[in-house]
């Protein structure tokens, strides 16, 4: 209900045909409180935006200060890798199933960071954090095959039986480091649109 009210208020902010809308709302029998709220209709959008921006900036500054003093402690990140999401922190081991070209000893950086955080703060991507904001470095340490999986099929009374054995490749990755590469920009964070890039 509150969501609906919010959206209605947003609509009302823009429209000139407020009277007709009010009539429509009465027809819909939306509660009186909402209608009364709309009568003044003097919500200061600019002030709210400014307040939001200020808040954003103060939070970013505090984060920057913490990072500058390197008091943030251990960082963690949620990375998107080969169609799966992993929550990783330095020293972790993750496994990629199926064919994946990198070989052992390769040092890679995982660029699709959906979320990064420390003890006191969390940076949430919409859906991903800006490229280059968080650097997640990893090393490939093993490429091997899984145990033998048996695919056994049988149909009763139909003289049908198949048995297949399968081993698929697995790649083990060690996360080496997670770092914030540059200080956060409070203004940009406040104004940032949802990023258009979707993988």
């Amino acid at each position, binding site marked *: 209900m509150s969501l609906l009210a919010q959206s209605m208020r947003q609509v009302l902010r823009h429209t000139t045909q407020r009277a007709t809308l009010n009539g429509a709302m009465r027809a819909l029998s939306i509660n009186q409180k909402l209608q009364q709220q709309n009568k003044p209709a003097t919500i200061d959008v600019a002030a709210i935006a400014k307040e939001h921006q200020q808040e954003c900036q103060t939070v970013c500054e505090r984060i920057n200060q913490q990072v500058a003093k390197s008091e943030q402690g251990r960082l963690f990140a949620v990375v998107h890798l080969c169609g799966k999401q992993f929550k990783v922190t330095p020293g972790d*081991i993750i496994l990629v*199933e199926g064919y994946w070209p990198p070989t052992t000893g390769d040092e890679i950086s995982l660029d699709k960071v959906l979320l990064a955080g420390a003890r006191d703060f969390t940076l949430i991507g919409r859906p991903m954090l800006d490229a280059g904001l968080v650097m997640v470095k990893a090393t490939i340490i093993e490429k091997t095959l899984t145990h033998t999986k048996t695919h056994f099929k049988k149909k009763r009374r139909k003289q049908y039986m198949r048995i297949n054995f399968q081993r698929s490749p697995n790649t083990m990755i060690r996360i080496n480091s997670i770092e914030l590469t540059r200080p956060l920009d409070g203004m940009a964070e406040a104004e940032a649109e949802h990023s258009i890039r979707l993988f």
Partner: protein
Amino acid sequence: MSNSHLFLKSGFPRAPLQNGVGRYVCQLQRLTLKFCKNNGSSRGMRDFIENHLVDFAKENPGIVVYVKPRRHRAPVLVGEYLNGDREWLSVRNSTQTEISKWIDLLKTQNGSSSSLRLRKMWHTDVPSIQGPWTPFLLRSPDAHNQTYPTSEASQPLDVPQTATEKLIELFKQQQLEADTVLEQKRAE
């Protein structure tokens, strides 16, 4: 699909000796190629030894390669690892490319992991950094201090408007409208 693998030895992803934390260390230490000089089943192995083995040994100075000819026996690859594991592979009638692929597998493995069912695709020493979630996380402090049962918490989340209440509301609205109309007339 059968569930026979459920009875396999199971485990979690582990890397020996913190491999990859500082740098990557190849875990394969010794590679033995056993083959026959005239048997047909060793043909691929002989081709591999002739064409690629020297390059392989040059590229991987950390791996000791032994070549062992023996009469009238099937060709075999044996890899020995840093953790003491020994992997034995029969490469009977395999071609040169197949053998080079198997050798690559032996090289990139950390040990003979063929008979281990993995229970998870993730391993961490630090499971939680911001602390594990509890039902009281990010809740208002009022919720902690309340004594139960409370009348507020006992109420249903959404109480629909009754018909009587609605009628009263409509009546009041009508009255308001009538008042405004009256006021307007008076003003005129």
